């Protein structure tokens, strides 16, 4: 499993070797948050899009003096890394007004001495309708122009089309990988998949696609199959750190599907490669499986999670949310009710991201949930 090892290694280092190689070629790296950022624009500008993470943070004391204990631990961990120079290898950062927590992380970082030379927020409407789509288009164009102006590059359609093709390839490969997970004998654990997803967000997609293809071949041939385990789907707040799932899977479960913004929600929808590429990208990102920040889209979200659960014939659904994440917290309460009504056991797990994670209590609840399913 060489490919898996390689991707795991990428996911474990903030400035991984692909980032270093990229920079050594004199090229730029820009951090971003959220699945509403059309990464292809950066990619087409020959800038490496790098998804901002809070992994590896040991304490958040600097961030806590700006963001507070009522702000989610993910945003605090990201800010801590920003404040403490963990992202100094980035040439800029692009945020989305994804939720109250992350937009405030942006505000605090931008105002801080550790701010990167290029700080940008691309505002996305909270409603899916024609006016919102037009607004988003205008914002994407503004963003593209800001990138062009600051980095002195030109993002031409031809490059955008290339980027769109590369990114679509990533999405198709991920679907293939998820098909393997959905099988009766899933060849990969959910923990491993989180690492793969996290690597995908931190390295050039062309190289990533190559490794992911290898990995798919390797896993198809591999003989280590997880059987006799409780099959789970995980949905909810952002997850790029494998610890949470490791805790759950250690108890005798295997996560075979997800509805996460680092996972299926991020790659399920493809960009239409036939027409105007910028318009197509805008459509793709604006209409992709909606985050709970999008109002009035609950039924679409429920349908998506249910579809994923059914494809992978799961035994149960874990609905996790990071404490204080109200967008996912409120959604999960509805999802819990609707999944139980559909006869699929579901559990809501409130958790912390990073150093405050309370593994003991989490394990008790996860274990009891597995015992409930196995009875």
């Amino acid at each position, binding site marked *: 499993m060489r490919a898996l090892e390689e991707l795991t290694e990428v996911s474990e280092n903030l400035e991984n070797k692909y980032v270093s190689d990229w920079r050594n070629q004199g090229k730029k790296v820009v951090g971003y948050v959220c699945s509403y950022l059309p990464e292809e624009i950066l990619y087409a500008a020959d800038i490496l899009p790098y998804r901002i993470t809070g992994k590896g943070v040991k304490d958040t004391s600097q961030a806590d003096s700006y963001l507070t204990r009522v702000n989610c631990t993910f945003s605090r961990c990201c800010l801590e890394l920003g404040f403490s120079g963990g992202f100094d290898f980035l040439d800029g950062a692009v945020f989305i007004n994804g939720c109250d927590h992350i937009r405030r992380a942006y505000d605090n970082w931008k105002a801080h001495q550790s701010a990167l030379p290029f700080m940008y927020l691309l505002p996305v409407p909270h409603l899916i309708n024609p006016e919102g789509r037009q607004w988003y288009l205008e914002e994407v164009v503004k963003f593209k122009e800001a990138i062009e102006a600051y980095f002195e590059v030109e993002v031409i359609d031809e490059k955008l089309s290339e980027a769109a093709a590369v990114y679509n390839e990533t999405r198709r490969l991920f679907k293939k990988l998820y098909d393997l997970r959905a099988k009766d004998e899933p060849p990969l654990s959910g923990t491993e998949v989180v690492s793969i997803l996290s690597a995908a967000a931190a390295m050039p997609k062309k190289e990533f696609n190559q490794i992911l293809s290898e990995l798919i071949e390797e896993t198809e041939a591999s003989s280590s199959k997880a059987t006799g385990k409780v099959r789970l789907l995980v949905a909810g707040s952002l997850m790029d750190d494998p610890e949470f799932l490791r805790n759950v899977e250690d108890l005798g479960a295997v996560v075979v599907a997800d509805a996460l913004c680092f996972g299926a929600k991020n790659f399920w929808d493809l960009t239409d490669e036939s027409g105007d590429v910028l318009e197509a990208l805008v459509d793709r990102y604006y209409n992709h499986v909606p985050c709970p920040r999008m109002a009035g889209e609950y039924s679409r979200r429920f349908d998506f999670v249910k579809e994923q659960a059914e494809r992978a014939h799961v035994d149960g659904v874990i609905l996790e949310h990071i*404490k204080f994440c109200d967008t996912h917290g409120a959604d999960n309460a509805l999802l819990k009710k609707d999944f139980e009504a559909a006869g699929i056991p579901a559990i809501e797990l*409130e958790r912390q991201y990073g150093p405050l994670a309370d593994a003991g*209590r989490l*394990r*008790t609840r996860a*274990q*009891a949930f597995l*015992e*409930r399913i196995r*009875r």
Partner: protein
Amino acid sequence: MIVAGCDVGSLTAEAVVMDNGNILGSEIIRVRPKPEQSARDVMEKLLEKLDLVYDDINYCVSTGYGRETISFADSNLSEISCHGRGAHWLDPSVRTVIDVGGQDCKAIKVDGDGLLEDFVMNDKCAAGTGRSLELMSEALGVDVSQLGPLSLDSSEVITITNQCSIFAEMEIMHYLCEDRNIADIAAGINDAMARRVKLLVGKVGIKDRIGITGGVSKNIGVVKNLEQMLGKEFVEFQEDPQIIGALGAAVFAAERVKDLPQRQASR
């Protein structure tokens, strides 16, 4: 066939030994710094009482917060499953179990076989746990075991409004300074506790009949308040409700030992 269950919680550790569907004995101790030590101490104390040795135990299931670190256990199960199972074993009519332990509070729903159907467990906050009851009784200056009996003498419950344990303590001090009746304050503490527990129970939804386990189940005041709030009476267990987690573990152990026909008599 002799089996055992061992429950190591945050405040106390319990052990139960069963033989062919009968309880041979049980033991409760305060926890030691390490779960493994608590488990050994409580088990050895019980074995001594029963005149048994470790090797006599054919299967042991551990449960509770320290369940994963107990080396003499053959397997472990969550205390959620064990409390449900133990309560149901004692009274097969039980479908909902409320377990209020030292650091957490759980509402557990079981099926006709005593197996887990659904559950909720409180978050990290101490409010609504045995710990908060201890803090409040300290503020009141009485032993936590006296809160229940004391509250029965109350003529007018003083509502403790604050949810946070720290503010609740301040509130209690304030009432003490005002020279309010100590029984009325005790009743207020129990009432506040019951409210917190009820909030959790509501999340899982009540199915009759209901049992209450864990240390707080010994507080008659909280129990009576909860019964009133839920509009239901709790079943009466023939055993100390505090040992029910360990008992459930032993019941599971009895079942699991049957699945191990060729078990080596290694111990």
